[in-house]
């Protein structure tokens, strides 16, 4: 129909048509979406639908299967909701701490909170145990630790682990928004006589809503699809949808059931995302891009707050993390025969041993190469996910009807089972999948929702009238972007980059990949050492994990130190 009318029209209308088309927000938005949608289509929707179509059949729609699924769904919900609430209970005060106050060691502590996100669960558990458990180096702390890691119900351990892993999401997303708030708003509320509670209730919280929602969605989704933590700590007593899919694909194969579970999980993801889109479209929080500067705590109450939270965060994050480097430098083995007293000693053996290929193994991982590969993949993931995430977030910040439809879809990779998607990859790409090219692509799939959800609230908070004012004053579109958008965005960009970086370094979604010994990464090296018995293997795994932790902390510090803006506002 449309082609017809075009053919009939003369050149004039045709030119008008194109002009209007180019100028229309639709065209601009389609342009923005081109790359991200193509990426998601090629590497997510196509492979996933391929495998789901192949695996699913109606025979799975039995009453027995639904009876099996129901308790799994409700447990998945229950633990995700509880974990999210707990994460917020720690995360919100921490976000306030980091965005409002200055104190010693703040950048380091802030960087450290992001580290658990990328450490293999088994490494943290073992090293913690090695130090604080029965025979540990600090066995005097056993009473504390045994109530903490050895004896409590596995359910409370799951919740604790989720908080440990995900608090950083709240700190980064909500903290960003907090420091983006115009301090004048709170000040005027205060001068009008409002007390702290009312300032928060009536001014701060409403302004924070978009970021709170974005953080809640991400944390909830991460807990909802939690895999490693549940598998490691939950045993056979607790199963989430993601764990059950893994079991039904690879362990007790029942592909139709696995496909059904995947579809259920995807539908829930879609529902959460649609709900989020609905709610977020009702809240617009545009503020002036003036930043609340953080300052040292002044009143005794502030000091008490900063000190308590500081101590809490140090205990909660630093203790388990510190156990890694300590353990990697400690020899716990004793001479046999006189083992009543376990002897300890300082040693750098494990690090030296990392550089030796003692057995001449083809699968030996040189630490430098592993670090280089890990960093290389992580940098590519940052670039790729920012390049794809920026246009998408831009489009989402000023939604048209197109975005109403597309918005929920960008979250889907977080809700897809990594195992199922992995199968889809194998089907779609076959032997080519062994190419190292797929590693950053797979990481980007997981990183992209984080990047978009981090950038979107920031982009939406940029007041249109500032842009218009700049444009009226004769600024070119680039100049407008540079002076208005960019300063507001640089913090959000740094957060987004940090997420992408940590997602890649921690190799989320790695289950969907085949590994080639030619391109080892640090997590693969850790895995290798832990797959065989022996003190040297354990020590080297700890040394490698320490290396990963150091690299990650340094990289995050560097990312956060970057001054992308010349405005001096930071």
């Amino acid at each position, binding site marked *: 129909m449309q082609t017809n009318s075009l053919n009939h029209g003369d050149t004039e209308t045709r030119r008008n048509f194109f002009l209007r088309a180019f100028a229309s927000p639709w065209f601009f938005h389609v342009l923005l979406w081109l790359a991200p949608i193509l990426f998601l289509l090629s590497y997510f929707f196509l492979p996933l639908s391929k495998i789901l179509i192949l695996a699913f059949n109606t025979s799975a729609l039995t009453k027995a299967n639904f009876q099996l699924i129901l308790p799994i769904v409700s447990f998945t919900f229950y633990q995700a909701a509880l974990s999210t609430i707990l994460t917020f209970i720690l995360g919100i005060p921490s976000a306030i701490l980091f965005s409002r106050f200055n104190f010693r060691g703040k950048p380091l502590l802030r960087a450290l909170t992001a580290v658990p996100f990328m450490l293999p669960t088994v490494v943290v558990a073992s090293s913690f145990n090695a130090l604080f458990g029965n025979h540990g180096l600090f066995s005097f702390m056993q009473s504390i630790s045994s109530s903490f890691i050895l004896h409590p119900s596995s359910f409370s351990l799951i919740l604790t682990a989720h908080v440990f892993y995900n608090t950083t999401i709240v700190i980064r997303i909500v903290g960003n928004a907090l420091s983006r708030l115009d301090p004048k708003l709170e000040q005027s509320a205060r001068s009008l006589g409002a007390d702290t509670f009312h300032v928060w209730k009536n001014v701060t919280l409403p302004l924070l809503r978009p970021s709170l929602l974005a953080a809640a969605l991400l944390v909830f989704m991460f807990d909802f699809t939690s895999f490693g933590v549940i598998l490691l700590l939950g045993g056979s007593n607790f199963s989430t949808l993601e764990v059950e899919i893994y079991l039904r694909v690879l362990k007790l194969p029942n592909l139709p059931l696995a496909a059904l579970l995947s579809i259920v999980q995807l539908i829930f993801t879609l529902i959460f995302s649609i709900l989020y889109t609905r709610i977020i479209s009702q809240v617009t929080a545009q503020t002036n891009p003036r930043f609340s500067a953080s300052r040292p705590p002044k009143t005794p109450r502030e000091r008490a707050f900063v000190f308590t939270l500081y101590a809490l965060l140090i205990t909660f994050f630093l203790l388990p993390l510190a156990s890694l480097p300590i353990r990697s430098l400690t020899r716990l083995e004793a001479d046999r025969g006189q083992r009543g007293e376990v002897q300890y000693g300082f040693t750098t053996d494990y690090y030296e041993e990392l550089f030796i290929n003692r057995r001449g193994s083809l699968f030996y991982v040189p630490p430098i190469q592993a670090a280089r590969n890990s960093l290389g993949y992580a940098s590519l993931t940052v670039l790729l996910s920012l390049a794809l995430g920026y246009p998408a977030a831009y489009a989402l910040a000023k939604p048209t009807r197109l975005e109403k439809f597309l918005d929920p879809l960008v979250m889907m990779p977080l809700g897809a089972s990594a195992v199922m998607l992995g199968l889809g990859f194998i089907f779609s790409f076959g032997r080519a999948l062994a190419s190292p*090219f797929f590693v950053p692509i797979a990481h980007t799939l997981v990183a992209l929702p984080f990047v978009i959800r981090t950038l979107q609230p920031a982009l939406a908070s940029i007041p249109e009238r500032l842009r218009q004012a700049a444009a009226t004053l004769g600024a070119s579109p680039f100049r407008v972007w540079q002076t208005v958008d960019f300063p507001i965005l640089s913090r959000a960009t740094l957060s987004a980059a940090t997420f992408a970086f940590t997602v890649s370094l921690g190799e989320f979604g790695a289950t969907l990949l085949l590994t080639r010994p030619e391109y080892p990464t640090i997590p693969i090296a850790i895995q290798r050492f832990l797959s065989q018995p022996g003190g040297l293997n354990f020590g080297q795994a700890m040394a490698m994990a320490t290396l990963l932790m150091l690299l990650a902390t340094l990289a995050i510090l560097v990312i956060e130190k970057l001054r992308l803006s010349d405005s001096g506002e930071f």
Partner: protein
Amino acid sequence: MKKLTILLSSLRQAQGIAFLFLLASCAPTPTEPQTITILTHDSFAISEDVIKTFEADNNAKVAFIQSGDAGSMLNQAILTKDAPLADILFGVDNTFLSRALDADIFEPYQSPVLSDISAEYILDKTYHVLPVDYGDVCINYDKNYFAENNLTIPQTFEDLAKPEYKDLLVVEDPATSSPGLAFLLATRAHFGDGYLDYWQSLKANGVVVVDGWETAYYTNFSASSGKGPQPMVVSYASSPAAEVFFASEPLTESPTASIVAPGMCFRQIEFVGILKNTLNQALAQKFVDFMLSQQFQEDMPLNMFVYPVNQKAQLPEVFVKYAEVAENPAVLSYAEIAANRDAWIEAWTEAMK
């Protein structure tokens, strides 16, 4: 309407570009006719020299792809039967053998080197898969713990349910772990249909179940470097040798030992097979011969801590000194395992809840 057309046409463009993307991403590393690809599990390891020898002798390039543990690897191989990821699959064991054979993913190949292989390991008389190595899954114990507490070493499964061994054993979940499954099979072989009652009694005696070997060994087992709370763990009969070989200080005695009492261990035999639709059958056959050859077989023990099946292969010293072989491992035919494995695991999971 106009908007719709634009959207549609850009979608069409999008498809075209998506296709290009796909093409670009599919562009493989150039597959030379002399490359041979082996799909294997994550625990596979071998010396560089050994592979170099094969590459030099056959003007070939050997590539490895690792894809999870043995079970995951096999399931992926079955799913990609028509367009296999590799030419050879190594690492399917006797607990999964029937599934592999039923799925008909292998080409038969009767290697001439089979004459050097002990007949007891050649389970598949149609030669679709050939044995490469074996290892016994047994309970390892913390020697020091038992000495200090004057505890005798349990010698039967029934012993483990006695009060003096309460809270002392950690096992792996058979649904997620291959040694866990092997241990379950050993109890099944011993108790028959009563195995679930036995597991109930273990549960009452405080057996700890974890997801995989790494957690069991490094987080829970007291004699490993993880210094966990349990002095007994389901591991391999070769693990004590690995403890010596990988000790951080030279040891003259292993801190651990295996319980190799009759029927308490389960023997895992690992097989290799040539995948149907291989791109290079002749080279694949040569590589299978090579895996069974003395050179490869003698290199395996210190790389993977398994035993060679080639009778000519000499064991390394650390194996002779510190590793034990179960004299009478539990026996279950692979056909029986195949027919019941999933049902046994599900029943076990239900019983242990």
